[in-house]
């Protein structure tokens, strides 16, 4: 049986993908992208999880053998920042698009652009 973490994370990715593929509103597509990103991050974290171990912060009571895998956590920290940056940029593009065409429907925008 597949673990609930994996299932949840992949479900989030698919929901995000669905939004990207099908929705016509640009903001909804961006929301979909954000959801996908969350899903990917969760998936990465859950890959590094070892059952019963604690956070990978070394102290007196926790030795390396007792911590979960720290590498996915470092990866995800980077990915979160990248995700925020791309979302911010995409949102600013959305604002400019709205100012220029007066709509956020991507088919409308495509038609207006010609």
């Amino acid at each position, binding site marked *: 049986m597949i673990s609930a973490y994996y299932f949840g994370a992949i479900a989030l990715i698919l929901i995000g*993908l669905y939004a*990207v*593929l*099908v929705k016509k509103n640009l903001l909804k*597509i961006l929301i979909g992208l954000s959801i996908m990103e969350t899903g990917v991050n969760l998936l990465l974290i859950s890959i590094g999880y070892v059952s019963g171990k604690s956070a990978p912060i070394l102290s007196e009571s926790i030795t390396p053998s007792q911590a979960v895998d720290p590498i996915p956590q470092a990866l995800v920290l980077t990915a979160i920042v990248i995700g925020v940056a791309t979302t911010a940029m995409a949102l600013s593009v959305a604002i400019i698009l709205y100012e220029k065409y007066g709509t956020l429907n*991507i088919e409308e925008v*495509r038609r207006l652009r010609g």
Partner: protein
Amino acid sequence: MNELPIIVISPLVAGFLAWLLRVRGVREIIGVAGSLVPLALLIKLYPSLGGRLEFTINVAGFKLGLMLSHLTWVFSMIAAVVGFTAILGMVSTARDNWEWLFALMSLTGVLGVFMAYDLITFFIAWEVMTFASFMMVLRYNRHASLKYFILSIVGAYAMLIAIGLIYAKTGTLTFPEVSAIFSQDAMTKMMGGPGLFTKTETMLIYGLFLLAFGVKAGMFPLHVWAPDAYSETNQSYTAMFSGVLSKAGVYGFILLYILMYGKLIVEFGHFRSAPTFGYIIAFLGGLTIIVGGILAALQEDIRKLFAYSSISQIGYILVGLGIGTALSIEAAIYHAISHALFKGLFFLIVATLIYRTGKTEFKDFGGLAEKMPYTFAMAFIAILSLAGIPPLVGFASKWLIFEAVIHENLPILGGMVFFGSAIGFVYLIRFTYAVWFGQRPSDIENTKDAPLPLAIAMGILGALNVIFGVAPGLVAQELNKIFGKTIIAGNIWELNLGFGRYNGLLLTIWMTIGLLIAAIIYFLGAGVRKVPVTDTYQSGNPVTMEYNLTIRRNFFLPLKEAMAFWLRISFDKLYHDIWKSIEDFAETARNYIYNGNVQVYAWYLAIILIILAAMGV
């Protein structure tokens, strides 16, 4: 043995120097010297031909080699002689440094093709030759050059694939080793054992080589580039283009015999008395003769006429090669030599005509025999030679091909060859009368005779046409050395096949006596009567006034009308249509797939991910 690379490289070096030095006079001297070096060295090497004349260098694990045997020497001499005369003609007709560079580069390429010892060298030289001749056409006509280039590229890729197949199976590329492996393979196959190459692979290699060499030789239906490319370039250069570069394709077919003969015989067997694979070549050659000949008769432009005529003559060589007996191959090589000589001469004459008058169409010419007596004399030699009238070289070589075809009992090919000879007269009579005789248009009243370089170049080729015609044995005995045994017996004046003989000298003497008698009768007072136009008859009926009685304009219009149905079937148009539909298809596909909708692209990504997941990546 370091003369061989010098022979190949010297024209290229001279070409670069002529290109860099933009001084008029100096570049001409350098260019002609560069084309003279191979000729001189080839003559110098002739006595040592029996030994091993080889040169190899190692490049990236491949041995690149050059080699001179009797066969390659004959072909290299064709290239060197006709190349030298063409370069000499260019002293008058070349317009800029560009032409010097690329004309000499193509001479390097063609010498490399003939002297190559392995398939890699062969291919490299082949491409140098193609590239340089493409550049020569590009300066004059973009469309013609692109057509030539695309067909050449198709041929080159075909050859590269075939070479790759051979290398993958045999692990070697030098001619003797590949040939040995193929004949060993043929032996195994004959014994019933499993061969190295399956029948399909053999067929594939044969087909690819047929495509590659067929394009370069101008074989039907791959000839469509030739009329445009030959006519749309410097006509002095065309002497080499049509005379020598097309022989690279012919040499390729001979190479096919050297490499794969036994294997192809074992796999495909015989058709009548010829090997099946050769019969295909011969039959396509026969079609080439007919198509080229008929189209040549219908042209209104001198350059086009000789371009088609050149295609037609290559057909004879292919027929000779295809029949595949020692005699017919020797006849084919003989015709390759004579074709290079008379077609080179023809294009130099065309170059002279264009240089002196600036006109290219029959309707603008007429009555030039008085004004250009020397060029006319050369044209007379060339016409007699192409038409196959003794005692010129064209007769000897065509006679050999006819004898070879008849001897093997091949009626269809025989018919094609004879038809081609008849149609040869049809288009040559047009050239003879329209350009040299009849009324002279007033704007070419002050035409002078050929400039000195062109005159010398024509003189060399004209003299060779006569010498090899009167003494056909000179060539035949050289060709016997290729096979290492006597195939055409006789002395230097006589060709003796055992079932037929031709004595060039005797015939010359008799013809001279005949001409003298005719001249005596003529001068002793043959009555001369002026014939008015209304006194001419066609099929027994008097000719009415609406008939066009000048040979200079649309003379073969009735033929054209009679053949209108067949002339509509044009391979040129077919290739063009195929090209257009590919373009349309690509455009439509592009509009549907690359439609600018980001979500569609996201779908593509998602679908690819699903496919990858399904494949378990």
